[in-house]
Structure formats: C-alpha cells, structure tokens
C-alpha cells in the first residue's frame, strides 16, 4: 500500500462515546476531532475519568462509537464488517497500562507473542520456521532475551512484561499503536527504558502513536502534539512545545502548574490550585465542563464551548488562562 506522508493515518471527526447508566447517559467522549500524521505521536493527557482511555478504545473499535467518524488512511472504519476490521487491526494495535493483568498468566511468553497472529489469521500464511524467526526478531527488537521464550509472565518484572505487551503489538507490523498509560505502573529507571524503546521503534518503523497518560513530563518527552482532555471534552490541542510555552486554557495552565519537578527554582512559584473535584459526567450541563471549578467562569461559559484556533496549529476552547 503506498503511504502518503502528507495524509493523516488516523482521523477522528466529531467522535462521541456515551454509556448508558441507570442514572442517565454518561458522556465519556464528547465531540472529539483530531488527525494524526504517519510517524508522529499524539499525546492525550487528562486526569482519571476524563475519557482518554475510552477515546483510545473507541478509535480502535474495541467498543462501538455513539456517533462521529474514525478514519484510517482516509476511510471511515466505523461501519466495517468483522473481516475488514481484522485487516485493519493488523495495522492498529494497543498496549495497556497494567503489565500485571494484561497478560494471561497461563501462557508462555512465546505463546503470548504469537497469539495475535493466530487471532487475526495471519499465522496461516506462515511456515513454522518463518514464525519462529519472526518471533525472535520481534523479541530482539523489544529487548527481550531469547531464553524468555518458555518463561511465564509471573517470572518477569513489570518492565519486561511491558516489553512483552509491546512485542504482542509489534508482531503484526502495525502502523499505529494506542499506548494506554504504558509506563504509569513502572519505576522511573524502567520507565525511561520503555520510553526510549518506543522512540527507537518509531524511528525504525515509522510508527504513529496515540500516547495516553496523566504524566505531563512523559507526554512532553514523547509527543509531537498534545491534546488536553477534561471530562470528555478536548480543552486544548497544540504542538508539544507550544502547549508548554503558551498554555491558553485555565485547566491546562493549572495542570502544568501542578506538576512537581526537580527544578528547585519552581518551589516558590505562585501556585494555581484548582478548587473542588471533577463533577459527574452523567447528563452533564451544556457548556464548558470545567466551568464549576474555573476561577474565570462567567455566565457565557455555561452556554457552549468549542475549540477555536488561537495561532496556527494551536486550538483552545478558552483563552482565559493565558495571562
């Protein structure tokens, strides 16, 4: 398939995902649009429950979307049938947060890594020798020693398990991977190993990532573009450096201000603490969902909100935070 470097590999257009609950509709993802170019990384940040994982899962069609479109190389995949989806899923993979619960404890590392080939039926076209070679190539690529083949997940530590998770995704030669908090459960020294591995794989295979995390330092390190979410809504979207240099939305600003860093000169900074807690996403009121906690909120904020371009490539739902 010819790959056009100037065409987005993944696009979301007005994507919504609601869940039915006994109390009403839970608006997990509300009207999210973005496009991701081949070989680039989109970071998605936000606090727990803001809908970032749901967004990742909806894009991969691991759960049906409520409305909107997800386009893979220009084609809307939301109405593809199972067979078509199998083909697409070879190009779109996911790695999960918890390396302890995302691997079947009764399968050997080798079986875990070949499982995706079986599931998507790619295995049929491969001889046993080819498969063996492929597995050892992928294990090598992900930094897994050969003797791990016959080990089981409980014999590995968190970092190595996360490498197995990555190998499971990489064996299909995907073009796009959703990384859902892949380093959150790891110690910093291991976290750095995995982040560098992800960057190496991206350089080598031209992968695109959607990197979901709540850790802003990590997201800045790995992403080209960053999308900030609050209660299902995108509040700001900009290039990584631009976002950190000129945060526009009051929420983004508070979020950036809250990050603890080892830079001691920041110790005496003026602290922006957001009052209160996230309200309920069930049957939310119209308008900006951050308004109840926002120091700048006015009556107009409760009307409606949409992303506006504030400078080329920089979109924000509100610019009150920029002072």
């Amino acid at each position: 398939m010819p790959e056009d470097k100037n065409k987005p590999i993944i696009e979301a257009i007005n994507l919504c995902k609601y869940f039915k609950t006994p109390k009403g509709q839970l608006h997990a993802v509300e009207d999210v649009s973005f496009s991701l170019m081949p070989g680039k990384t989109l970071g998605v940040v936000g606090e727990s429950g803001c809908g970032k994982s749901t967004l990742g899962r909806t894009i991969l069609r691991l759960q049906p979307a409520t409305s909107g479109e997800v386009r893979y190389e220009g084609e809307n995949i939301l109405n593809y049938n199972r067979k078509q989806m199998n083909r697409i899923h070879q190009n779109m993979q996911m790695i999960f947060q918890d390396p302890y619960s995302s691997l079947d404890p009764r399968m050997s590392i080798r079986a875990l890594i070949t499982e995706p080939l079986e599931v998507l039926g790619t295995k049929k076209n491969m001889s046993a020798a080819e498969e063996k070679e492929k597995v050892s190539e992928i294990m090598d690529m992900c930094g897994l020693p050969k003797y791990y083949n016959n080990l089981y997940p409980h014999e590995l530590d968190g970092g190595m398990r996360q490498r197995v998770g990555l190998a499971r995704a990489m064996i299909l030669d995907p073009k796009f991977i959703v990384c859902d908090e892949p380093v959150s459960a790891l110690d910093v020294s291991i976290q750095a190993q995995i982040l560098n591995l992800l960057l190496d794989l991206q350089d080598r295979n031209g992968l695109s990532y959607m990197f979901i995390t709540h850790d802003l330092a990590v997201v800045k390190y790995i992403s080209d573009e960053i999308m900030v979410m609050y209660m299902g809504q995108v509040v700001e979207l900009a290039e990584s450096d631009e976002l950190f240099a000129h945060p526009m939305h009051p929420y983004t600003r508070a979020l950036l201000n809250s990050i603890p860093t080892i830079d001691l000169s920041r110790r005496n900074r003026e602290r922006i603490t957001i009052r209160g807690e996230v309200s309920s996403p069930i049957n939310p009121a119209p308008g900006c969902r951050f308004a109840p906690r926002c120091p700048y909120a006015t009556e107009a904020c409760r009307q409606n909100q949409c992303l506006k371009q504030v400078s080329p490539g920089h979109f924000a739902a509100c610019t009150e935070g920029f002072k």
Partner: protein
Amino acid sequence: MENDKKVVLEIKDLHVQYNTDDATVRAVNGLNLTLHEGEKLGLVGETGAGKTTLALSILKLLPEKVGEITKGSITYKGEDLVTASEGHMLKLRGHSISMIFQDPMTSLNPTMSVGDQVLEVINLHFPELSSAEKTKKVDEMFNMVGIPASRKGEFPHQFSGGMKQRIVIAMALIAEPELLLADEPTTALDVTIQAQILELMRKLKEEFNSAVVLITHDLGVVAEFCDTVSVIYSGMVVEHGTVEQIFEGDGNHPYTKGLIHCIPSLTDTSKRLKPIPGRMPDPRNLPQGCCFADRCPNCMEVCKQRLPEPYEKDGHMILCHLYDEKEAKNA
C-alpha cells in the same frame, strides 16, 4: 542549622529481613537515618528498595513471624522502639507517631461512615472528652482538611480518591503527632489533586510542626515538599543531603544521578533519556560489594569486593567508592 534542633528519630545500622520458607529476603541492610524536629525528609527509592519496610519497622507493624529486625536500633525521642513492648507501641501509634498509607481506597473501612471512623480514633486518643466535645472535634477535623462536616455520615465509596486521602490525613493528625510517616500519600492521585494534598500537608505541618517522613518514588514530589532527602537503594541509604545538595549539587551518587537523568525534563526536550540499565539486585541474594555496582557507569574493581565507607561533607552523605578515592587523594 538543622543540627541545633532536637532529634526526633534516629535509626542506626538497621537490618530487617523477611523469613519465608524458601529464602531470607533482606529488605533493609544497615540503614542510618536522623530526623530533626519539624524536618520534612523525603525517602526516595524504587519499588523494592525497602522504603515501606522501614516505615513498618518504625511502627513495629512488620508482619508477625515473617518480618524480623535482626540488628540495629530505632530511637524515638531517646527511647528504643526495637525493644519496646506492644502495649507501649499501642500508645505511641497514632498518638506520637502516625502513618498515612498509600492507598486511600483500602485504608478506610467500607462498612463504617467516615465520621464514625474519625470518631473511633478520637475515642482511642481522647477517652476523657465528653461526647459533645468528641463530635465537635470530628467536625473540626473535617473542616481542617477541607471536607464539609455535613458529609460525615457518608461512607468511603461516596468520596473521591483525593477526599478519602484527606480523611485519612485527618485521622492521622487528630492527636497532633510529632512524627508523621506518609507512605506514597499522593501516588494514587491525579496531579491537580496531588497538588491540593501536598498543599494541605504543608499547611498542617506548619500548624503542628510535626516531623514528616515522606516516602515516595517521585523525585518531583520530594523537590516540592521536602527539606532533606535520603535516597534508598537495596535497603541502604546511598545518599543523604538537603534538597539543594541532591538536586543542584554536582557531587551525587551515581544512582541518584541515574534517577535524575531518567526523568523527562519539562524545559529541555532535545535530549534522549538515559535509563539506568538492568535492575535492583534480588534481595534474597545480595552481592558482596556495593549493591549498585552491576548497574553503575563508574564501577571499579573495589566496588564489587566491599561496601564503601560513608563519605560526608557539610551533612551531605554519599555511600560510594568514588568519593572514598577522592578523599584518599586529598589526604
């Protein structure tokens, strides 16, 4: 400056091990620590470094029969805790020494209203108060941590993670302890909520002037909150100093340097991270020399043979042969 203040807690050459059927796990190996009145000490280290074991040893809450203090002393305001009786520890726990646990979701009782849980602690420490006074105290504690007292009849599941942690903090502070052990108090929380909790702990610390031991793996949190830092590796303090000495000084332990290089910077994005290769040695089978030797970029022959002597300058302690050598040359 710090030295003029009273010493609250002193730990000398502490060894703690867990005895299991298959092996002896050596979690803490000759750890030294001194904490002064009103000091905020950060205890940093990776998973399995022995941070939580240390906190449990101080409170004598190690799992019975399995966990054992084999050597060393823990002195709290002049009295030895290692040999203290359980009855005496019961008086200290929560009253003079309090602990905040990592997971606010599991450290509260799901079947009791939060108000009753706070009341339980008050009953324990202030049995002499009348019930009206006790109720007043419950309300005070809720207000202090920023939760409306009207919600005291609710149950833990009705609160968010940050609010549960506030309730746990309120319970820990009721008796105005002189020593507060906080084991990863913000790890399970989001950054904006983490900022709120740290702010709260800072405020409360000023109010009560308790000494705080903040156990965390997050160097950023330490730099924000603490006065001094102890870096723990394989159950030993490998470096101790003020936050300035640790984060802005040039002479650091190679492990501390490694940890700092692992953290993505918010200001400089050009550089690739430099991870520390390998992982911590198996506590069932510790090496003879320096525990960090296998992963150390500056490893020398002597590092594999014996443990270094602590090198100290202006209260900045480093446990590394590199500094031994320098010392030898200067002498």
